[in-house]
């Protein structure tokens, strides 16, 4: 369809909107009830432990704004929810980096801000939040040794076949445990608090 530009106003400001943005807006509007609760569960997943009091609603809000203002174009062929999940993940990463820079500035470590390695290194706050989140996930599956093995493998970046080989699991055991994990995760993701 090309990139014919049309005009719309967003929050009273005239902006140009191309068809990729229109497609995204239309698809977001048409999300089903189940997709919307999936979207909330994804927002909760990515935003856990964010500093500065940011919650999942803030992250989802920002993702929608970026998609609708065209700053995050929806690539062709990518399912909408997967795309929005990626946008939210990126927003959370950006926020962690911003918080790290703020902390360095606050503590007078201005020299570190220019150094690229330090700039991208996670701060202690992020490390702690991540460690706490991992503890929570492990606690969630505490009664399921096979799920814990899979979680350990996934955290190490192993593939399904590598996890099966490493832990001596059959493919069937793996699939069954992943289904249990999915149910537990969704149950949890659907009930996690607003903040």
């Amino acid at each position, binding site marked *: *369809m090309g990139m014919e530009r*049309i005009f*719309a*106003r*967003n*929050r009273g400001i005239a902006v140009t909107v191309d068809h990729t*943005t*229109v*497609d995204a*807006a*239309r*698809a*977001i*509007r*048409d*999300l*089903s*009830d*189940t*997709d*919307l*609760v*999936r*979207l*909330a*569960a*994804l927002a909760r*997943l*990515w935003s856990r432990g964010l500093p500065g009091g940011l919650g999942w609603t803030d992250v*989802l809000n*920002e993702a929608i*704004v970026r998609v*609708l203002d065209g700053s995050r174009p*929806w*690539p*062709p*062929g*990518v*399912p*909408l*929810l997967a795309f929005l999940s990626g946008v939210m*993940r990126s927003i959370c990463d950006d926020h962690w980096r911003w918080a790290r820079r703020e902390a360095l500035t606050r503590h007078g470590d201005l020299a570190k801000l220019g150094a690229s390695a330090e700039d991208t290194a*996670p701060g202690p706050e*992020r*490390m702690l939040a*991540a*460690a706490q989140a*991992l503890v929570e*996930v492990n606690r969630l599956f505490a009664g399921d040794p096979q799920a814990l093995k899979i*979680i350990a493998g*996934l*955290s*190490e970046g192993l593939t399904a076949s590598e996890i099966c080989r490493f832990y001596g699991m059959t493919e069937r055991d793996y699939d069954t445990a992943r289904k249990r*994990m*999915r149910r537990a*995760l*969704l*149950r949890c993701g*659907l*009930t996690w608090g607003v903040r």
Partner: protein
Amino acid sequence: MRKQWRPHIDLTRLSTALSEEILAATNQEVRRLHAETGYSIAAAAQDVRDLIAAASGEQGNPDPELVPAEGLYFSASCVRQH
């Protein structure tokens, strides 16, 4: 054995895998699990719709002037076709 534990890397890998589980869940699975929470799925979805409406600058029923002329109300697949 790794020299240094990097929990943020582990969590990112794990969250990526878990997000795929959320995406892979069937509608039936989502509905059944949501029913267990005791909160209506329609109400939960409406909360998210309200949030999206607020993010897109809409207040209640959108002003037709504020949306692209082509409109945003057509039925569309969730995967772009071009």
